[in-house]
C-alpha cells in the first residue's frame, strides 16, 4: 500500500482531497456559503465516497491535486477574518497560519525530506502559537457556546449541578435563533474536561488549544507505526494545521477535543489491535457531542471484540452516570435540549453550510431534524457495506456518515465539518499505510 515518493494510494488521495474540499467549503463563510461553500462541501462528500470505492484498489495518485487544494484552502481561510473582535495584532497573527502554507506547500512538495519535515513542523508551531494565544486575545467571545460552557463548568467547580445553572445571554438579546439556550446543552464530558482548565487558567479554551499539538503528535506517531511514507505524513500534517483551529478555539466549540480524541483512537489502534484503550478513545466521541451516533454504531459493528466494546461503552457511560444520579431531570433536560429545539421549524438555521439550508433559502422549504438522523444512519450503513473492516474503514465510514447528516441537517457549521475533515485526514493516513485491522 505504500506509495512511491510523491504518490499515495488512490483511496488515501481521495480521502485527502475530500478533506480539503470539505475544509474549503465549510470555511468560506458569509454570503458565499450558498453559492460556493455548499457546492464545495457536496463535492467533498462525493470525494469521500470515491475514497470508499477506491479502498480495494492498488493504484496510486500523485500529490499534485492535493498541493493545489492546500493553496486553495489557504486563500479561502485568508478571505475570512477572525470570528470575534480582538486586538489588531491578533487580527494579523490569526492569518499567519493561513498565509504561510502558500510558501510551505512549495517545500513540502519539492523539498528534501528534511526541508519537508521542517516545513510541516513550522506550520504546526505557528498554528499552535496562534491557537494558544487565542483565549488571551479574545477573552470574552460573543458566543453562546463559550458562555454556556464557562458558566456550567464554573458551577461544577463550586459543587453546583451544572445543568441547573442559567448562563446570561451573551448577545444581550440581539439574536433570536428560534430557541433559547440558557442551560448547557451538551454532554457532561465537555464540562469535566473544561473544569480543570478553568480552575487553572480561568478559561477552558486553553485545554482546547492543547488539542491541536496533541492531535498532530498522535496522528504522526500512528502513521509511523503503520509505515506511512514520511512524505504523506508531512502533507497530512500540513493539511491538519490548516484546519480552522483558531476559529474553533476562539468560539469554544468542543470539536478540537474530539479531533484529539479521534487521533488518540488512531494512535492506540496502530499500537495494538483490539485493545480496550482504543475502544475507550472512540467511545468518548459520542460522550463529547451528541451528533456522533452512527460512528459509535459503526465501531460496534466493525470491532467485534465484545469485552473491549463493553469497557469503552462503560467508560463513556461513566462520564454521564454521576450527573444523572445527581439530578436526573436536569441532566436529561440539558443533554436533550438541542434535539427538542430542533423540532421547532423556527430553529432551522438557514445560514448553515448544508443542502437543506440552500433549499430553504431558495424555496423556503424546511426539513425536520429527522432527515439528518436518517441520513447519518443510512450513510453509515452504505459505508459499512462498501468499506473493509479496519481502522481506515472505520474512520472513513464515520466521516461519511457524519457528512451525510450535516449536509441535510437543520444546522451545520464550520466546527462540525472540521471534525469530519480531520477524520478524513486520519483515514488518509491509515489508507496510505499498512492495513490495520481493528
Amino acid at each position: 500500500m505504500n506509495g512511491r515518493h510523491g504518490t499515495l494510494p488512490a483511496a488515501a488521495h481521495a480521502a485527502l482531497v475530500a478533506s480539503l474540499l470539505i475544509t474549503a467549503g465549510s470555511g468560506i463563510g458569509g454570503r458565499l456559503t450558498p453559492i460556493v461553500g455548499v457546492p464545495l462541501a457536496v463535492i467533498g462528500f462525493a470525494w469521500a465516497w470515491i475514497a470508499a470505492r477506491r479502498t480495494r484498489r492498488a493504484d496510486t495518485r500523485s500529490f499534485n491535486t492535493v498541493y493545489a487544494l492546500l493553496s486553495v484552502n489557504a486563500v479561502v481561510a485568508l478571505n475570512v477574518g477572525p470570528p470575534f473582535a480582538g486586538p489588531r495584532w491578533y487580527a494579523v497573527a490569526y492569518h499567519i497560519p493561513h498565509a504561510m502554507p502558500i510558501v510551505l506547500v512549495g517545500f513540502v512538495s519539492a523539498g528534501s525530506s528534511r526541508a519537508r519535515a521542517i516545513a510541516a513542523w513550522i506550520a504546526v508551531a505557528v498554528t499552535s502559537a496562534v491557537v494558544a494565544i487565542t483565549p488571551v486575545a479574545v477573552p470574552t467571545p460573543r458566543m453562546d457556546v463559550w458562555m454556556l460552557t464557562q458558566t456550567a463548568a464554573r458551577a461544577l467547580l463550586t459543587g453546583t449541578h451544572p445543568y441547573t445553572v442559567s448562563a446570561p445571554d451573551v448577545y444581550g438579546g440581539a439574536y433570536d435563533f428560534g430557541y433559547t439556550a440558557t442551560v448547557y446543552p451538551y454532554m457532561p464530558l465537555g464540562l469535566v474536561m473544561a473544569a480543570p482548565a478553568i480552575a487553572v487558567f480561568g478559561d477552558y479554551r486553553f485545554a482546547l488549544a492543547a488539542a491541536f499539538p496533541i492531535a498532530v503528535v498522535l496522528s504522526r506517531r500512528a502513521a509511523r507505526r503503520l509505515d506511512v511514507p514520511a512524505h504523506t505524513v508531512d502533507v497530512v500534517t500540513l493539511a491538519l494545521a490548516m484546519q480552522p483551529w483558531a476559529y474553533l478555539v476562539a468560539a469554544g466549540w468542543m470539536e478540537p477535543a474530539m479531533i484529539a480524541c479521534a487521533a488518540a483512537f488512531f494512535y492506540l489502534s496502530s499500537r495494538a489491535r483490539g485493545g480496550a484503550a482504543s475502544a475507550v478513545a472512540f467511545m468518548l466521541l459520542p460522550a463529547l457531542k451528541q451528533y456522533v451516533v452512527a460512528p459509535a454504531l459503526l465501531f460496534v459493528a466493525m470491532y467485534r471484540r465484545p469485552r473491549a466494546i463493553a469497557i469503552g461503552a462503560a467508560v463513556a457511560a461513566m462520564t454521564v452516570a454521576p450527573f444523572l444520579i445527581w439530578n436526573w431531570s436536569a441532566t436529561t433536560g440539558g443533554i436533550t435540549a438541542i434535539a427538542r429545539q430542533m423540532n421547532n421549524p423556527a430553529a432551522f438555521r438557514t445560514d448553515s453550510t448544508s443542502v437543506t439550508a440552500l433549499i430553504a433559502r431558495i424555496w423556503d422549504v424546511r426539513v425536520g431534524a429527522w432527515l439528518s438522523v436518517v441520513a447519518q444512519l443510512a450513510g453509515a450503513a452504505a459505508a459499512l457495506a462498501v468499506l473493509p473492516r479496519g481502522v481506515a474503514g472505520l474512520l472513513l465510514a464515520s466521516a461519511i456518515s457524519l457528512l451525510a447528516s450535516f449536509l441535510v441537517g437543520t444546522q451545520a457549521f464550520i466546527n462540525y465539518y472540521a471534525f469530519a475533515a480531520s477524520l478524513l485526514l486520519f483515514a488518509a493516513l491509515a489508507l496510505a499505510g499498512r492495513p490495520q485491522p481493528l
Partner: protein
Amino acid sequence: MTAGVTRAIVRSIVTAAATALLLMTANWIEFTTLCPQHRAWIRRQGDRSAAIRSEGYMVARPGDVIYACTVQHCFAGSFDCHTDLACYCAPATVGSGTLGGMIGGSCSVDQPHPSREDDQGGCRHSRCDEQLPP
C-alpha cells in the same frame, strides 16, 4: 533553496492568486445578483408596502428602534455600485439623522417600538440587517 522548490512555491502562489480571483468573481456575482439588501430596495421600488426584512437572526434589543436606511453599496472600491435598503437596529437616542451620517446613507424610523408580532412596515418581526452597539 533548490530550483524545484522555487518552482513549487511559484506554482502555489499562482494557484493562490487564481483562487483569490475566483473568490472575487464569486463575490461580485453574489453582489450583483443575490445581495439581499439590494433586492429589498428593488422590491420596495415596485411595491411601497413590501417587506425589507421579515426574517433572520438579528433582532432589536430592548430600547432599540428599527430604522430603514438606504445606502450606496459598492464592490471593490467603486468598481460597481448599487443602492441597498436595509433595517438597522439602533438605540432610539441615536436618531435617524445621526445614523444616516454614520453609515453614509439616509434613514427613517420604520419601527419605533419593534415587536416580534410586527407584520406592517418594512422591518418586520423585530428583525434587522445590522445593529449598532448600544
